[in-house]
């Protein structure tokens, strides 16, 4: 069974030093974010604020900060859909997904199934640079989904996708979360999308980054599909952020 995967990020200080004429950027100062186990938190905030940096800190690839990241369980399995696809261009689509998974037949099956659901069934053996950017992004999503992670970090996952495809992927994500309890940190610029998917929308402002607004979204799955309800909550999110 999946581990508990809530987390608390405390960043006493995260600053990118000045270099070569670039000014110093003090991104975070005494910042704290708690994410409950199995919750779906959407992060909204202006471009260049530090959202990606936050995900990198949570993922453990950015260690150059003062503060700490504490998980409820030890070492949750992390799936990270980066802002750019970060595929291995010299491995086929299928291999890119498989490399993130443990060995085993059932994993191959699962990878194939996820790719199929994402409309990449006939691209399994293609090298990533021969795909459109939207397809590459879907491969990266497939990689994160197929892993069935405890903690799923997503950095604007559904851009470069047409509305229909994006819709399908949102459903896939909902499925995944339902099948297996997962904590999700989801960066997006689309407030509608945030409300449609998340339990909680956190609007960030700064710098230094602070939580401007923390909106709980208490809609049933059905209501989330209705424009009216979504727009109502969204107004709430946007008005405050604006």
């Amino acid at each position, binding site marked *: 069974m999946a581990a508990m995967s809530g987390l608390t990020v405390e960043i006493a200080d995260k600053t990118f030093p000045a270099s070569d004429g670039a000014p110093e950027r003090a991104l975070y100062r005494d910042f704290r974010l708690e994410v409950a186990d199995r919750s779906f938190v959407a992060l909204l905030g202006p471009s260049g604020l530090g959202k990606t940096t936050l995900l*990198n800190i949570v*993922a*453990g*690839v950015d260690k150059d900060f003062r503060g700490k990241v504490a998980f409820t369980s030890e070492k949750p399995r*992390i799936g*990270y859909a*980066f802002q*750019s696809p*970060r595929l*291995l*261009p*010299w*491995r086929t689509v299928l*291999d890119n997904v498989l*490399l*993130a998974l443990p060995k085993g037949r059932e994993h191959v099956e699962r990878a194939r199934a996820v790719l199929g659901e994402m409309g990449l069934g006939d691209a399994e053996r293609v*090298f*990533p*640079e*021969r795909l459109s950017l939207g397809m590459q992004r879907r491969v990266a999503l497939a*990689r994160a989904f197929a*892993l069935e992670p405890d903690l799923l970090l997503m950095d604007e996952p559904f851009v470069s996708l047409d509305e229909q495809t994006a819709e399908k992927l949102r459903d896939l994500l909902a499925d995944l979360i339902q099948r297996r309890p997962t904590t999700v940190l989801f960066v997006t610029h689309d407030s509608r999308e945030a409300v449609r998917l998340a339990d909680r929308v956190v609007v960030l402002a700064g710098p230094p980054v602070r939580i401007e607004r923390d909106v709980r979204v208490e809609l049933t799955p059905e209501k989330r599909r209705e424009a009216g309800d979504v727009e109502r909550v969204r107004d709430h999110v946007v008005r405050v952020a604006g």
Partner: protein
Amino acid sequence: MGAASRLGWWAISLGAFVAVWWLAALIYAEPKLLPTPPHVLDALLVLAKSGALFSNLAITLARVAAAFLLAMSIGSALGILMGMSMTADRLLGPWVVLFLNLPALVIIMLCYVWFGLIEAAAVAAVAINKIPNVAVTLREGAAALSRDLAEMAAIYRFSRWKTLRHVILPQLAPYFAAAARSGLALVWKIVLVVELLGRPNGVGFELQTAFQLWDVATILAYALAFGLIVQAIELGVIQPWEQAVNRWRR
């Protein structure tokens, strides 16, 4: 590009080479200084018939192969380490530069004196000569590795081996190709010197003898024989390998 077309281009290119050489030799008209292709072919046949060609080439090739493998593996390991770790680079960098610039003569001489005029000393001398070369080439490659992909590998918990095989080595492929090509050539050249300085056989030994007797045709015959072998390696091994590892490029 198919194998057939590759072979065709190769033939055209080398044909042009032979033509230029032949013409130059005819114009120059000094067979002692620049023999014509048939002259050299004759010399090659004489050497082949006497068996000297094959035995010497075999001995030299064995040394080249041993030293090449040794130098490529140690040098790559060292270079990748230095490229990826700042500390390793700072500590080992000056050593590498020093060894890189130690004259072959010095290394060969010291190896022979310390280990004796034995086969192992010869191979070691060549490998030591070549290791720093491979190391500096691969260090550049390792220093230019993609950070994005390294982070991806870390997050998805790729094992060391998986990271090396699927993330790092593919990025180093062009550096390997460069190191292997000029490495093979360099190793061969140093083997010649090593044979000159202390082995009783091999192509280097024969070349020196031919040089003393001013037998340019024989010298060119040996050079040509090795050149053809490398061309074969190029066509049969390196180029197909390169094509395979570059399949993914659009």
